[in-house]
């Protein structure tokens, strides 16, 4: 009996150690992604679509520059310059421009995976068979409720770069698969590799976004916020998003549980009136758009569709500032 208890305690401890080791790996991975210079090709597969893309990432003068481009004919490109993010959509002849947040303070504002993560995700680490000729560790991030997705990451043992990532739902069904076919971690990245190659002449440039609000705070009167938030998600940033062609900016709230993030945008409805609710899926990101009291609520996040729908449907105008209620895991969310 005592032996059984010891064994249980031992394996529980081992599981804890495993979770801690997994967390450490994730932190190493985040650091590598942020600080290394690299240039790679990867495939991105969802459901019926497979695309090849290239990513170039450079850190210089303390700033991150990045270029992500689709190689399969859509020609889409995302470039992070010194001050802005440009999304080139040649198929629409549009360039979307967002100002960059101040990443230094941003990284601090986001909750790094911490001990509380264990309540919502089961983290574990194991050894994997080699990928791209490299030794890898496999990190499993398994969601403990239906509000989140799960992840399996194959990290290069030496650099912690993610060579392969699968996003899956709670039952283990894969939703998205990203896999590097070539990856060079370099000393130097030539400037031309992080410059856009799309010929954007004649494109429409759409500028949005405004500076990050100083402190992540729920607005008091006159603001909006979700009354129901999935467990573990907390507000990490609040800002205004300017809408082209409209004098009123949208409110932008960002919630995160340390692994996934959900953005909520609240803006006044168009004069034409409310639209029926709509759902969209973009790979492992889901969006839900609905109308409440003359406002359009858009929720986007790397979470299941039901989660964004619920959070969007719970958004309401604030008269006073009570704390948002948290849905109990296992309970019905009505």
């Amino acid at each position, binding site marked *: 009996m005592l032996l059984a208890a010891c064994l249980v305690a031992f394996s529980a401890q081992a599981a804890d150690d495993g979770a801690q080791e997994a967390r450490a790996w994730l932190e190493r991975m985040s650091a590598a992604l942020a600080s*290394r210079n690299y240039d790679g*090709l990867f*495939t991105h*597969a*969802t*459901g*019926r*679509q*497979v*695309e*090849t893309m290239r990513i170039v990432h450079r850190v210089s003068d303390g700033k991150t520059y990045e270029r992500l481009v689709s*190689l*399969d*004919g*859509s*020609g889409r490109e995302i470039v992070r310059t010194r001050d802005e993010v440009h999304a080139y959509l*040649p*198929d629409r002849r549009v360039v979307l421009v967002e100002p960059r947040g101040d990443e230094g303070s941003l990284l601090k504002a986001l909750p790094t995976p911490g001990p509380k993560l264990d309540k919502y995700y089961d983290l574990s680490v194991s050894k994997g068979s080699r*990928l*791209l*000729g*490299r030794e890898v560790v496999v990190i499993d991030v398994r969601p403990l409720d239906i509000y989140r997705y799960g992840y399996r990451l194959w990290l*290069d043992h030496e*650099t912690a770069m993610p*060579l392969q990532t*699968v996003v899956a739902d709670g039952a283990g069904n*894969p939703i998205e*698969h990203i896999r*590097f*076919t*070539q*990856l*060079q*971690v*370099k*000393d130097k990245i030539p400037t031309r590799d992080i410059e856009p*190659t*799309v*010929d954007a002449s004649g494109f429409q440039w759409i500028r949005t976004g405004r500076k990050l609000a100083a402190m992540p705070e729920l607005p008091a009167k006159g603001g909006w916020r979700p009354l129901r938030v999935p467990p573990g998600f907390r507000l990490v940033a609040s800002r205004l998003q300017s809408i082209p062609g409209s004098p009123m900016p949208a409110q932008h709230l960002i919630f995160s549980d340390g692994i996934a993030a959900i953005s909520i945008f609240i803006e006044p409805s168009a004069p034409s009136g409310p639209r029926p609710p709509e759902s969209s899926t973009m790979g492992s990101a889901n969006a839900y758009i609905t109308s409440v009291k003359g406002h359009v609520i858009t929720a986007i996040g790397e979470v299941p569709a039901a989660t964004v729908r619920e959070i969007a449907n719970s958004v309401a105008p604030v008269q006073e500032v009570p704390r948002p209620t948290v849905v109990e895991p296992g309970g019905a969310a009505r």
Partner: protein
Amino acid sequence: MQPMPNFPPPDESMKSREPGDDDGGLSAGTEQSDLELVRRAQRNERGAFDLLVLKYQHKVVKLVARLLRDPTEAEDVAQEAFVKAYRALGSFRGDSAFYTWLYRIAVNTARNTIASRQRRPLDYEAELSESEQNNVAARLKHDDTPEASALSEEIRVTVNEAIEQLPEDLRTAIVLREVEGLSYEEIAEAMDCPVGTVRSRIFRAREAIDRALQPLLD
């Protein structure tokens, strides 16, 4: 700080495979010429895109047929790939050779077709790496229709016979061009004659083979 090592590509299927691997057709001149055709196509000269289709149709059909379970679908899928390429022409910058770009579009169109059929999206790699790696086995595995196999065989035989019949200078010129992938300049040097003569010899060789093929292709 030491430069980090490059990760080698894992296996043949995922390596950025040079389309020139199994043919000598590509040369620097071809790339430039293709690029010029692309530019014209981008300026709405449809004839230019037609030329690119005519030039690469067999390559793409053959490639796609290798990748699909059912080779009879190859033409439909190849057609889809060309249409995709046409729609995406605006974003082709000339960083790579046109055929390299087209090749990737064709491979992905084939993959998407397989993935959508099978509804097991993550299995596609297992399927493809096998057939991509083993061309011969794949050709043997995929039973094409008897008509298609017969025609393809007849064409091969006809072309070979016609080549054998050619005068030696014409035969040498076209083999150096099509099989060895030499440019006119290089062939001129190899055959010790002017470039214009090379151009004329290759043309006459093609004309002769074309005449032999006409009854088959009508």
